[in-house]
């Protein structure tokens, strides 16, 4: 899975700090229920402001499915919904906990400045 990285190439201040770790974003999106590709893109954009490209999204989906962290549900018309697995949930929880700890420490350091 790709490492956590901050997108800092945007010009406007509100865009600085967008979170871009596609597999983690997909897991976070599926944590609220099964979704297909288009819903995931919209949900992730609402969640953190990052709009994933279709190639990036399916790159993440493929690797998450391969690792058994998400699984496909029966096809609805041509749309393929996915849901997070129990293993995916625990991975997401572990990653978010680490991020939370990291964010807390980072913000504490900023307060000291």
């Amino acid at each position, binding site marked *: 899975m*790709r490492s956590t990285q901050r997108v800092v190439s945007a010009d406007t201040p509100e865009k600085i700090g967008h979170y871009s770790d596609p597999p983690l974003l997909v897991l976070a999106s599926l944590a609220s229920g099964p979704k297909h*590709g*288009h819903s995931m893109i919209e949900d992730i954009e609402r969640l953190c402001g990052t709009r994933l490209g*279709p*190639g990036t999204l*399916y790159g993440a989906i493929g690797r998450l499915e391969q690792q058994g962290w998400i699984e496909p549900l029966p096809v609805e018309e*041509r749309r393929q919904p996915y849901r997070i697995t129990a293993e995916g949930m625990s991975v997401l929880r572990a990653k978010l906990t680490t991020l939370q700890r990291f964010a807390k420490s980072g913000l504490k350091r900023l307060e000291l400045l």
Partner: protein
Amino acid sequence: MNPRLARLLTRIYPVSWRERYGAEFEELLETGRGGVRMVANVAWSGLRERIFPIRGLTPNRDTVPGRFHSLCAGAPWAIFSLAPLSLLAGCYIAACLILWIGWTMFLPGSDTPFGGGPQHGLANLYFQFGKYFYGCAPILVGWAVAVVAVRQRAKAVWPLTGFVLVAWIGAAARIRASRTEIPGGLGHIRMDFALWPWVQNGHESLVHALVILSLAVLPYLLWRIQIARTTLS
């Protein structure tokens, strides 16, 4: 997005990937926003998928012929040592042929095609092409070894053997062509191979071998790093 463009973009991905995700991906492209950025995103991701395919999808009968896969597993020495050497030999024969045709066509009266030849025009272009083909042949063969190793998930020792052999031969090979010095032989052209080129030809050959090795091994190395990163995270 136009369904035809969506289908075209999906074709950038490998067959095994398309079989699994093609229909839903096409649907997503058709209903989603278009634009250059999106096309670039899909093109880049498709090429990335070809270079670093998802492991579970790779052993697909349509992309990897079963017989070839078993040959790679059963006789890796043939696939990663004999085959690259044969391919390189084929490239060198083609390079000699290019040289001979150019020599006959553009320099019929000269003793050798090397040095003092034409400096411009079609002849120059022709000889430059032949020269680069000859120079790049070991690297191209090395890349072919890397592609097979990646697709077949071969143990590192086999492609590395292939890279070393190809670099060695690449540094050891010398083309000689002269009507007076090589009176016999095929078209007065001969290829010499030094067993220990760096001993006979000095440091230049060693540097040449290392350059070929580095360039040939680079795509394979990138793939190994990618795999290591995926495993670690």
